């Protein structure tokens, strides 16, 4: 739960960013991130909210753990499941 997950901002509409997480696009809320965020930035996300903008120089180092988890983890892996939950936090239910 405190791992969070980094993703790349694709576009921004008001307080909602569309963020790409390793190929999956999800809306993420920008209410509590404390720096201006623009398309192309990477943000660290937790339960559907961006909590930090990741400095450009640190992006690759920050992505390494997650890339490995999502690429290599088996379906049952605990840590990968937590990362997937964080990505799913951006899912918004459709009507009905």
């Amino acid at each position, binding site marked *: *739960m405190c791992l969070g997950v980094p993703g790349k901002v694709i576009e921004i509409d008001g307080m909602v960013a569309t963020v790409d997480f390793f190929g999956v696009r999800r809306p993420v809320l920008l209410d509590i991130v404390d720096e201006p965020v623009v398309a192309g930035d990477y943000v660290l996300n937790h339960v559907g909210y961006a909590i930090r903008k990741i400095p450009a120089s*640190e992006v690759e180092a920050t992505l390494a753990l997650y890339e490995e988890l999502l690429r290599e983890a088996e379906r049952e892996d605990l840590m990968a499941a937590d990362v997937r939950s964080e990505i799913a936090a951006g899912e918004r239910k459709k009507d009905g």
Partner: protein
Amino acid sequence: MADSRASGRALEFRDPRRGRELTALLGRLCADIGRAPISVMHVCGSHEQAIARFGLRASFPRALDVIMGPGCPVCVTDLPEVDEAVALALSGVRIMTYGDMLRVPGTAKSLADARAEGAHVDVVYSVAQAVEAARRSNEEIVFFASGFETTAVATAAALLAGTPSNFSVLSAHKYIPPVMEIVAEMPQTRVEGFLAAGHAAAITGSEVFERFVERHGIPVVVAGFEPLDILAGLACLLELIRDRRATVVNAYPRCVTREGNRKAQEALWRVFRSIGGRWRGIAHVPNGNLRLRDEWAHLDARRRFKIDLAGLWSYAPPQSAAQCICGDIMAGIAAPTDCPLFGTKCLPDKPVGACMVSSEGSCRIWQEYGGRPDLGA
């Protein structure tokens, strides 16, 4: 093998040679300190996941004991807090909560039990999903909110952004810094240093630990979640222990600053106040619980509904629950393998204690990945 996509920077965090250098450094530092065990504690389920998943304990010097403290918010949710959610669900209110909360045992029942009896209990990944569900519905929806400050910030942001009138919050949010004080003062624990969780510190900043260090004379190192981040954090912590330097070091500057995310802190404290309360199995923790401020009373499920727990408390807890040692495990006094129920009567699909339920609970993590490696006598 060089991965053509990886930059030199990424390799810095993957480099096996650096890993070996760091573990050799850990060995030298333990030898310098010259006693055993040297116990250090982290307070984050994600740290334990990384330590167990990547098999880091096998590379630690024997003298170094890295213990997981109360770093699983689901696990420290107290029985009466679960009971409140169960009672609300059974009274006909729809409960929405994070997945791990579903199977955490209350005094008599879990939310999963309540759901099996016909109560409406839904799992969400974000408080924002619960707010949206309330917007599309007329029924009363209570978000049963768990998690440490990092997660509480999201709840705060959701309330500040505005919620429909049929939405309220049952807060079981907890605040980590005060419980570190409790654990530091437990005579049985003998923690000589803390590894603080990187992403919680992204919110609070590393400065939140400065007063703790002053008061207790125990060093704190903020560390990330990459295997090399953890090894580097531990090496830094052992150096501080060796040199008897009680100070805060931020070993995760790529995500954490000294002052943290001020905007998030402001949102957190506008919505919540910290009050004392019990953490399951640990103790009463002064200022350890986050509850809605009076200004938000109209959104507080505890004030909106009359929650009757008496019906739940007439049950006797199951026999096996009495043998559960989750509390000692979270206080760092015992390991999961010390529990008579671990891996036999208490398993992920039929948990007795909360530490076996959550993906951040030490028992669940040790069950999935293996715990302390058996290195022979």
